[in-house]
């Protein structure tokens, strides 16, 4: 590519691709149907690089780089899957399972859960670490939705969709470390929130059964995500 066009070429898993300079490694991989595991990233939302599943190896760098926030560079050589990466990814997913109370058999999202799917994809058969089994609340004070903290993996998609797409910023995080949790408004029951518009976007971007619609039983909660890229695309066209 000529320097004027600004476009970059890079190698992902041995194949050559062209990319715009503002694209991330994940953008290029997604466009070309190369799967990189990830939990916190969702097309249409800002990226935070928090779950650490999308780490990839880049030739010449001694660090693993999060593909969702790493911009492409000319001549980059990316490896998205290796024994080492798979090992780390499995451990991270195991950590997520051990952190709270993930019991698939009684979960509304059973069969439609991104955490469950990820475990399957990575070939996880057991969680090798003891579960933390924290005692956490279920907030069912909202008319239409339920928040079950036992199933939350702190991906912050709900926080971002509410702030960036809906513009309400009802959700946020409080606390530190393993005690961190998502809250509505100033840590009050969701039903009493004055900022929540009841749009339900948070529910549909949630990767697990942490946020669900009321009235759904085990395995009945299927999430609709397609609205998000459409919404972003429509807005970009109007700008």
């Amino acid at each position, binding site marked *: 590519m000529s320097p004027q066009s600004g476009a970059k070429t890079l190698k992902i898993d041995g194949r050559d691709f062209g990319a715009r300079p503002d694209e991330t490694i994940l953008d290029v991989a997604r466009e070309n149907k190369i799967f990189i595991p990830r939990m916190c990233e969702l097309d249409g939302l800002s990226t935070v690089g928090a779950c650490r599943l999308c780490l990839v190896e880049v030739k010449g760098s001694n660090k*693993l780089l*999060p593909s969702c926030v*790493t911009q492409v560079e000319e001549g980059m050589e990316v490896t998205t899957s290796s024994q080492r990466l798979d090992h780390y990814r499995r451990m*991270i997913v195991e950590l997520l399972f051990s952190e709270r109370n993930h019991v698939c058999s009684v979960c509304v999202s059973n069969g439609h859960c991104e955490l469950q799917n990820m475990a399957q994809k990575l070939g996880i058969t057991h969680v090798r670490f*003891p579960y933390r089994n924290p005692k956490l609340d279920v907030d069912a004070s909202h008319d239409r939705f339920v928040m079950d903290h036992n199933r939350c993996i702190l991906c912050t998609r709900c926080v971002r969709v509410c702030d960036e797409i809906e513009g309400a910023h009802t959700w946020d995080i409080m606390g530190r*470390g*393993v005690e961190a949790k998502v809250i509505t408004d100033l840590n009050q029951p969701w039903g009493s929130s004055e900022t929540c518009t009841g749009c339900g976007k948070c529910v549909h971007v949630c990767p697990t059964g942490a946020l669900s619609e009321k009235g759904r039983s085990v395995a009945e909660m299927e999430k609709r995500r397609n609205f998000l890229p459409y919404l972003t695309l429509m807005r970009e066209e109007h700008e």
Partner: protein
Amino acid sequence: MTPDELSEIAETERESQKRFKHRVNVCLAAGCVSCQSQAVKDALDKDISRRGWGEHCQAKGVGCMGLCAEGPLVSTGTTIGNERLYKRVGAADAAEILDSLEGPLVSRLHCATDVPFFQRQKKIVLENSGVIDPERIEDYIAAEGYYALIRAVTEMTPREVVEEVMKSGLRGRGGAGYPTGLKWSTVAKSFGTQKFVICNADEGDPGAFMDRSVLESDPHRVLEGMLIAAYAVGSSDGYIYVRAEYPLAIKRLRAAIRQAERAGLLGANICGTRFSFKIDLRLGAGAFVCGEETALIASVEGKRGTPRARPPYPAMQGLLGQPTLINNVETFANVPPIVRNGGDWYAQIGTEKSKGTKVFALAGRVQNTGLVEVPMGITLREMVFEIGGGIPDGRKFKAVQTGGPSGGCLPTEALDQPVDYESLARLGSIMGSGGMIVIDESSCMVDVAKYFMDFCMTESCGKCTPCRVGTYQMHRILSSITNMTATPEDLAMLEEFCDLLKHTSLCGLGQSAPNPVVSTLKSFAAEYKAHIEDHTCPAGVCGKAPGGERA
């Protein structure tokens, strides 16, 4: 303020100081204040006025004198080399000290200064600590303060200032040791509508108090360093991010900023040039992670203090998306002497790759706990046994911990290694911000590792998975080892976690959280083994209380 006006202030101040035949300096930094040094100062003031000595004798509040273990410290005498240092002084001793000014010293309170603790130090950052009154700008100016700033803005181009800092070889004193001149030149060359200079005073390592002492003892030096940096990189706005747990440092910084503004050394058109700079304070709310630069920036912006992925580095996109220079307190404090004496002068001190001096907070099982400044390259043995005076109560040395929760524990075999960035990193620890905790045989190294892991677990911000849950799992395994319930498989799992956190965590906190474990596993593997296989704690620390929990 012009150079002439500055000299005039310095001259007037020196003249007024000369009229005192005797001076009694009382340490009013946090260490001595906590053992009632303010009462000593009050008693001295009262006695001086009762005797009618006000004309020729002055009791002056000064900053840290270093030997915090023996506080409150008082020194008398006006000429260098002629001072007498008194330790553990109480308000009741005031009269006796005043009586002794013209006679023999008070041997009961006397503290010898011809010992290695004082003789082996080289003071650059702390040159004014314990000498000047930190609450008076005139005293700082009389000690050649703000000369470097005026010289920089009136005689040097910003590029020349950056070159001088590059020549000095100064590296970031916050812990990572990034070359300061390189950072400055990157910010200077970054393009932005506005640039910021931030001073990181969110000192959070357990047992570390270097930055606090510098801010309490010589706040103007930090302001001057920031001003020079701002001139060099082209910034007009600065912030000092200081933790709210340092009330005395905050009070003195606020006073210093007001004084500097009134003197025309801070604000618009400094020294009649086009250079303008203002400094605001931002108080940290007690989160260790806010010492990480991207988390610190988020906190200054009013957001939750969580780090973000780098690049982009703050030098390109920092506060409000603008190029931002972030340096530690001690780094800024090194700048005025570098500009005053030249980069070459600074580069003579220290080792090949680590120039200058480093301030350490000596703590733990060592005779002389306190604040010391030594040239880089001094050996750990000299630090612990000469300056530190060795281990008290006839116990045996076991390890020295540097770099706080991100650092490691170095065993006896490492004692003859020099203290510089590369050597400590090679040994599996880090220089860190300057905390140095000496550990003797009465401590269990697994217990020490558990303590630091507990610290990292509770201070993790919770953003990324490996640090949030990994530190919890590592702490759980370490607890099971100290409870004597761990298996060899647990130990293998612990090592797996060390590797995971180091390579997959988002920021330095998580990446370095395994260091205390890795370094103790390397040097004290036998202690881990004794807990797991023989269910005993060689130091006799673990498993004392019923239920297996440590007492």
